[in-house]
């Protein structure tokens, strides 16, 4: 076994760190620090995303025939981890989940406009899966697309359509055969957000992050905006889930918070002159964070390695998702205890970006345990696919 990066992988990591350091201009840093812009969409964000496209990072892991470099999953993980570490709101779902699927299955029109735009860093796509009545049970979705000659007419409502406020398209799952079993009557479409009949209303979350309800009212789309075969959409939805789940729980950002809190504790004195890091319980909290982080890092490394080997098991992605998301919450708590009451100040109250990040992260972290496939369902997958236990009613 060799449980560390190879010399080439370490070099790549350094190269990416250096590159991202350059990418973060003062203007970009300032834009992302402003309330409401931390999830991206501002001009500096757009500029940086275009640069990432130009420099080949977006297409890094895409297949060669789709214009990519076919980087290994480990190299891709190194990039993902580093960019998440910086706090840049990289649109993973666009670049990792939707993009390659569209490139493979879409019409000439979609490939020329949407896919090329994604690769250039000019296009962001929001995900239109969940509905008020279809969350974890995604296949229960009701939004309808009805064929009318060469066109489709789309009607329905989606919820939690994050990033829709600045996205160029929605990657939409719609029911095209109401009589088929629920997984077999779904088709995928790309809906331009400037289409007539498209509208949205914001939903503000506990984490101050905006998401949206999106509405589709008699939207007429040419058949070219359909992706994949009619009624074959379910496979396209589930095909990219493993990479998506892995990018949800990279250890970079959590580790960055740990490093910065530890540095702060080692350089800050208490009133009686001892260093914060010399308090027994502070050390104990830092040790607990480190113990959890090490496992998370290895879980991610092993998965990336297994993807490259083609040996990734179904339960593995679920292990990462459950463990990672639950660890994040524990991580924020342990680190906030060290910083104390100052960690409860809103992020814009802080001169220090780190301390603000801690307050921001704990508020946004709670969505991860149920988002991206709720953890109870992941545990069902683990019991079934990992331990061969018979399933109950699901």
């Amino acid at each position, binding site marked *: 076994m060799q449980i560390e990066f190879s010399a080439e992988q370490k070099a790549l990591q350094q190269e990416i760190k250096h590159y991202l350091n350059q990418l973060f201009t003062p203007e970009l840093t300032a834009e992302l620090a402003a309330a409401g812009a931390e999830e991206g969409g501002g001009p500096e964000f757009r500029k940086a995303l275009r640069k990432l496209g130009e420099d080949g990072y977006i297409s890094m892991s895409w297949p060669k025939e789709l214009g990519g470099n076919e980087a290994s999953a480990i190299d891709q993980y190194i990039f993902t981890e580093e960019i998440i570490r910086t706090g840049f709101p990289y649109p993973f779902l666009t670049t990792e989940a939707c993009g390659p699927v569209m490139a493979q299955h879409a019409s000439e029109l979609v490939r020329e406009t949407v896919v090329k735009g994604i690769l250039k860093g000019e296009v962001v796509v929001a995900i239109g899966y969940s509905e008020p009545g279809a969350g974890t049970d995604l296949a229960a979705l009701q939004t309808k697309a009805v064929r009318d000659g060469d066109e489709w007419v789309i009607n329905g409502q989606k919820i939690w359509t994050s990033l829709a406020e600045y996205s160029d398209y929605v990657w939409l799952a719609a029911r095209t055969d109401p009589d088929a079993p629920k997984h077999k009557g779904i088709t995928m479409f790309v809906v331009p957000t400037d289409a007539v009949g498209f509208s949205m209303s914001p939903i503000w979350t506990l984490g101050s992050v905006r998401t949206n309800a999106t509405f589709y009212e008699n939207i007429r789309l040419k058949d070219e905006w359909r992706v994949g075969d009619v009624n074959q959409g379910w496979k396209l939805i589930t095909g990219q889930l493993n990479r998506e789940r892995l990018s949800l729980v990279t250890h970079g950002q959590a580790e960055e918070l740990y490093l910065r809190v530890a540095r702060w504790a*080692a350089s800050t004195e208490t009133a009686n002159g001892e260093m914060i890091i010399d308090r027994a319980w502070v050390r104990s909290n830092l040790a607990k964070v480190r113990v959890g982080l090490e496992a998370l890092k290895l879980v991610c490394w092993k998965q990336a390695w*297994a993807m490259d080997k083609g040996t990734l098991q179904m339960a593995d992605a679920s292990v990462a998702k459950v463990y990672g998301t639950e660890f994040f919450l524990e991580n924020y708590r342990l680190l906030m205890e060290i910083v104390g009451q100052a960690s409860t100040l809103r992020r814009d109250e802080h001169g220090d970006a780190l301390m603000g990040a801690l307050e921001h992260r704990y508020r946004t972290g709670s969505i991860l345990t149920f988002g991206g496939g709720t953890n109870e369902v992941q545990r069902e997958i683990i019991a079934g696919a990992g331990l061969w*236990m018979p399933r*109950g009613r699901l």
Partner: protein
Amino acid sequence: MNFELTEDQRDVQALARKIIEDYCSNEQLREFDQGERFDEALWQELGKAGLLGIAIEEQYGGMGFDFETLCLLVEEVGRCVAPLPIVPSLVLAALLVQRFAHSEVKNNVLPDVASGKSMLIAALGDVDDCGVLSSRMQAKRVDSGWKLDGEKRFVPFASRAQLLLVSAQTDDGVGVYLLPSDSSGVSMQRHTSTAGEYQYSLALENVRLSNQQCILSGEQAASALFEVNNLGVAATCAQILGICDVMLRTTAAYTSEREQFGVKVATFQAVGQRAADSYIDVECLRLVTQKAIYAVEHEASQEALAACLVAKIWAGDAGHRVSHASQHLHGGMGVDRDYSLWRYCLWAKQLELTLGNSAESTERLGQEIAEEFKALEQ
């Protein structure tokens, strides 16, 4: 990055598994539930197959594999809760001799360890410390050599061992001594541990040793003990991993067969969810253990120490959780001595408290972290 075993390692693993499983059915293990928990025949069989010398260099009668491969054998011992002194003998004692002693000592000791002809056991730990780094036993220079006085506790198999490896405090740092277990002045008191293992309190009173019997001293002894402590911790984690993996699979299999209310118990969501939590624990334990085993061989000493502490904390915590989840999900069968699970649960607890428990390892890791970051700030 590579998480795969080599072909040779897979062969060793398969051989170890085959031999150990042949000796460790529930019925066979029952014979060792009373009296001394040691399977001499299995020990000899492993010696014959070369597995006791798996990580001993070829020139000393071993097979010359690395520590990682030795840990595969340790994991198999865990998987079968085999009644063998694997870590105190093959890791803590034999590896200390192999890596740090003079070639003359190695020539005298290691070939017989590899063949199973004699047993070498480490008595390095102290009265009140689970690790092997400190020692209250005193060694004084006398004209012809050394005089040792003091106590060692929790020494398994001391009465079986022909040779003991003992650490003691000298006027000039710590020393490591090699002595026959029947040396004059050595007395033993037997205790039975929670897992049913005989462990001994060793009292050394005016034990006279020659200069040659002091195999390590000063800085060299201290760094040997540091390294061997890491090796012992990493190997113990491998043993706990084997134990936990079997507890988990046994529980999944049992609940998939057992019926209540007319359905398989495993189909109740509360059961599946708890088993999944154990699965996550075992996967994390596997990875941090593999990392610790890798780090002690390939990374700088402070990183190796941190990796070992991380692994031991996981082993303690996951061992505790998986053990109790397994007992619980088995219902009465989990505690029935006619069924196999109970031995695993006892061993998980025994090893959780061996060579550093979660709380003290957390304290030590915190100390390491504090030193690391204070150094960065200076």
